[in-house]
């Protein structure tokens, strides 16, 4: 596969999409006297990787919590493909907002097998609640095969704790994609991974975006962001300071923006 070729395609597609598949408008949130977000805007278009960047305390984590339905904003509106949506709970965020959040350390239950993890909370069952184990097994293998293709996973019955950080991350992503979410919100997915594993996770994001699943990539690491993102949204002190396409900026400029605010 030719990476550069694909990313050109993706950005071409992204630019033609008129309405963002998800948009958050004028979000404000304060904790006591601390204003975490002030009239912040954020949007995601189909098939793109958006880098949500900013230094510690810029309001990134508050925005993630709001988008995933854990925290309610004081004011602001959300739109999915132009229609107003309510994402005030985890469930609404996932089903109505189409957002799947993948937190780094709590994405999967480590003491359970991959298969059990993939279907945790969404088990296919018969009327009595018994699981269709055969169906689960074959679906699990298809999921692993289709989206992840990470070497070393030889069976869906392996416990997650036996996987490396990158493999586990990949399984979490594969699960999210399989359950038909439009947008993956990845919170620091690479911060605990080795260089090689980081590379794999970045590739997965790129491939997913090319297949039409948008990713929001929250990270401290500008190199990783610059390698994979189509667009960057930079926060500082709870406000938007820059929103630009990859073609309009450079790594140095991004670094400058974050450093100077």
């Amino acid at each position: 596969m030719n990476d550069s070729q694909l990313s050109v395609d993706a950005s071409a597609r992204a630019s033609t999409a008129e309405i963002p598949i998800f948009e958050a408008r004028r979000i404000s949130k304060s904790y006591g006297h601390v204003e975490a977000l002030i009239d912040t805007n954020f949007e995601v278009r189909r098939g793109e990787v958006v880098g949500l960047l900013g230094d510690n305390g810029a309001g990134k984590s508050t925005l993630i919590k709001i988008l995933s339905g854990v925290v309610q904003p004081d004011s602001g509106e959300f739109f999915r493909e132009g229609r107003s949506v309510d994402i005030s709970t985890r469930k609404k965020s996932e089903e109505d907002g189409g957002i799947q959040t993948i937190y780094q350390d709590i994405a999967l239950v480590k003491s359970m097998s991959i298969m059990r993890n993939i279907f945790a909370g969404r088990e296919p069952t018969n009327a009595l609640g018994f699981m269709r184990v055969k169906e689960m097994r074959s679906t699990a293998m298809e999921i692993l095969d289709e989206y992840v293709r990470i070497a070393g996973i030889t069976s869906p019955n392996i416990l997650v704790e036996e996987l490396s950080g990158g493999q586990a991350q990949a399984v979490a992503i594969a699960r999210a994609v399989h359950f038909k979410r439009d947008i993956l919100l990845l919170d620091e997915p690479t911060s605990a991974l080795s260089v090689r594993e980081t590379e794999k996770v970045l590739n997965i994001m790129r491939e997913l975006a090319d297949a039409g699943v948008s990713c929001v990539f929250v990270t401290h690491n500008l190199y990783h962001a610059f390698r994979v993102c189509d667009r960057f949204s930079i926060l500082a002190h709870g406000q938007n300071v820059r929103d630009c396409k990859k073609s309009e900026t450079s790594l140095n400029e991004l670094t400058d923006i974050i450093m100077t605010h």
Partner: protein
Amino acid sequence: MTETAKPDIQARYRQISLVDRIRTHPAGPVAVVFVVMLVLCTLYALANPTSFYFLTKGNTSLVLRAIPNFGIVALGVGLLMIAGEFDLSVGSVYVAAPFGMAFAYANGVPLAWAILFAYSIAICVGLVNAFLTLKFNIPSFIVTLGMLFIVRTSAPYLAGHTRSLVIKLPPDFKAALTKNLWGFMPAQFLWFIGLAIVAYLILNRHFLGNHFYAAGGDKRAARFAGINVAWTKTIAFVLCAMFATTSGILQVARSSKAETNPQLFIELFAVAVCVMGGLSLFGGRGAVIGIVLGAAVLQLIQDVIILARLPGFYLDMFVGIAIVLGVVMNAAVQKRY
């Protein structure tokens, strides 16, 4: 890549090999201990048939009748332990719920309703345990320790301080629960195996089992996967109390007597069995076969102590050591990976 034919995928993802599965199975160590003990006892009995009556029908029947007693309680405690909580109150549910049944039955309530009454007591205790533990976010072992004594006290108190109650159960009912088949196989043991299969099906074939493992293994991850952790644990608490009640009813059916004897410590034996069987104290790990084998090992030890006419204090000491060793062994097995 998406075109890959299904059989190909099936072939690529193999089952883990049998050896690996046993090696990584949480019940591995207890299985080894059980087999070794059984072989040693058999060999010793064959060598000394006149002094060590291990292989007699009488002894087999005795052992198989004693195992279900705390084994069934341990099945419930184990389910709950996998879901990440403890229940020490089973010790008094085991006593109080069947006592309620006997009390109702002795006062003219039809047997079916009396049994229903016993289970409704169990469900109530399970719900109270769950409510106090989950609502106030208090360690379950403290809540259920408190409940152990509250329930234990209230049964005889509500029934007018009766110490024990002799009842005459219908012979069919008694036989179905406790008949000794072929001279060595008490029906209780078959019930125990049946209930173990039920527990296995819940854990491995039912979505509840998946939720138990998830809630016990990582509460936050389970919540993020959309599992209602509080509801899941509540069900586990209720199931645990119901298993304890079942064991208590079997015991009452066997002796035709419901006692309020408070000094059985069946709750601690149940925890010991689970820990020996490879269940993690922190939840999320374990298998039903481990509980069954753990119960068998504990009873084998007791039997050996009796048959060899060793002093009784060995059993107490053994249980103490087994609890600690069990946890250490579990931790060692987990650390390999």
